[in-house]
């Protein structure tokens, strides 16, 4: 056990010092205790949810039987999936554009591209609300077309993140490979498909995961763009928390936390723990 080794602590082995370990431990406890408690109490057989009364799955049954909750979940996942696909395409193009070309007003374009990341969520939400109201964006369309406004808003704030990830990935690309391909007779498109795209792939995966979580996570912007029949999961949970705290919320939240963990595990499998650490 290296962790509890008896060797004397070297000056730079800060991690082996007791106060440092307790500090990290306390921080992790602070970060995780509320989440773990929430998950544990979703199995609690008590309506008031403060004292442990015994194990039950009935709140999961209730959550799954709650049609509007399930619908909100389906909406959220649909939006996240659509937003991810579009964000990856737009983000990859934007990333390549910034990485590869010199063009007039490039720094202005770069600045504008980073704006959706910097501008506060509330302002972007407001802008989307006014925009869709002003455009007379059709409402009451059949599913999934009624989700278009929310999806568009999500793509707007997701794709600059993908562009950043892709651009930093492309920085390690060796241009000579591309030149070699062209010398050997590949067309512009073939070079893109067979040389650039494979190099870009880890960036695309990281960007896609980022876009998916950002979209699934978003409450504020969705809150401003959603209508009465386009409720997403965070908006639904918000109204449940606001008006009546029920163990159903715990059950639904636990399902989403598990989804996050599964996504993280997928990312781990695809990129390894180091790869994930590096993309952030």
């Amino acid at each position, binding site marked *: 056990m290296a962790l509890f080794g008896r060797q004397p602590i070297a000056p730079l082995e*800060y991690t082996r010092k007791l106060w440092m370990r307790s500090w990290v431990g306390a921080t992790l406890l602070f970060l995780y205790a509320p989440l773990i408690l929430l998950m544990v109490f979703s199995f609690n057989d008590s309506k008031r949810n403060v004292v442990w009364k015994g194990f039950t799955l009935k709140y999961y049954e209730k959550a799954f039987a709650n049609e509007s909750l399930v619908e909100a979940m389906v909406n959220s996942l649909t939006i996240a999936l659509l937003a991810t696909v579009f964000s990856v395409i737009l983000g990859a193009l934007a990333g390549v554009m910034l990485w590869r070309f010199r063009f007039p007003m490039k720094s202005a374009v770069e600045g504008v591209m980073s704006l959706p990341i910097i501008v506060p969520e509330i302002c972007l939400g407001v802008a989307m609300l006014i925009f869709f109201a002003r455009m007379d964006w059709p409402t009451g369309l059949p599913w999934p077309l009624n989700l278009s406004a929310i999806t568009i808003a999500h793509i707007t704030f997701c794709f600059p993140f993908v562009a950043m990830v892709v651009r930093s990935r492309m920085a390690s690309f060796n241009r000579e490979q591309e030149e070699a391909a062209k010398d050997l007779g590949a067309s512009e498109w073939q070079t893109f498909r067979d040389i650039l795209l494979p190099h870009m792939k880890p960036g695309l995966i990281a960007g896609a995961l980022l876009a998916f979580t950002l979209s699934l996570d978003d409450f504020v912007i969705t809150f401003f763009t959603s209508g009465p029949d386009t409720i997403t999961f965070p908006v639904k949970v918000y109204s449940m928390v606001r008006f009546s705290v029920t163990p159903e919320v715990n059950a639904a939240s636990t399902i989403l936390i598990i989804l996050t963990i599964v996504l993280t595990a997928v990312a781990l499998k695809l990129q390894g723990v180091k790869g994930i650490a590096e993309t952030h």
Partner: protein
Amino acid sequence: MAGALQDWRQHKRPFAAIVSAPIFWLVLFFLVPMGIVWLYSFGQNVGPAAIEITGTLDNYKRATEWLYLSIFLKSLAVAALVTFICLIVGFPVAMAITFATEKWRPWLLLAIMLPFWTNLLIRTYALMMLMGQNGYANKGLGAMWDGASWLRTLVGLQPLEAWTPVQLLYNNFAVVLGLVYVHLPFMVLPLYSALDRLDKSLIEASLDLGAGHFRTLMKIVVPLAGSGIAAGVMITLIPALGAYLTPDLMGGTDSQMIANVIERQFKRANDWPFGAALSFLLIYAMFALVALQSLRGSRAKVGAH
């Protein structure tokens, strides 16, 4: 050089193919909506659903009245406090990750990032559950109180009166704690990436030459990691300033922040032009912060030469 940029004029067709879609999207679904908000901020309500852009500055005048200005300043103060606490809590954590063994480092990073990926609303709700009137935070405090009371009887003093649960939620304290909880990972990750790039032999040299750990930290580590600290501060300060959800759910009547005021103009108060003006003031504040940061960055670069 392998990384040389291509001039767009020599590659017009691929350039057009790559550029058009993202630029189109950015203009239509970002710049145009933002432009409309900007125009609305110079408008006024002329009917229940009609807004006329008259070029008036009344909305801005109203926004700088003390009532709104004080909320603005309070949001800034809360965001600054949250950032400061995150820095104090996060710095040792980032140090610990930097100096952890190869095997542990990625897992510690993952442990910091996992909450960052978890839904914001769920995290806020989880914290609210913990801090409720009958939650575990109150029970823990109660147990400590009882312990103190028992200690007092041990030394022959009167025992303390019975523990009454304190109100931990729906006040300013809850908002600050909630924001720290949510933003801590934002701070740790840039701090870590700055500390990771640091030349560790400099720390060793400082320690060898007789400086203590604290002195080394203040004189070597902090100046060298300055840009990372500034980045962490920015990444925490900006979203904390525009926070909506935490003050809305965890705050009391006196702890609303600027985002809550903006939201009210668009939902209940239905005063879109005024809300638009407030939004743009918040955006200008954000720009000022970013400009300050880049000024600092360029000065640091000049100083290095």
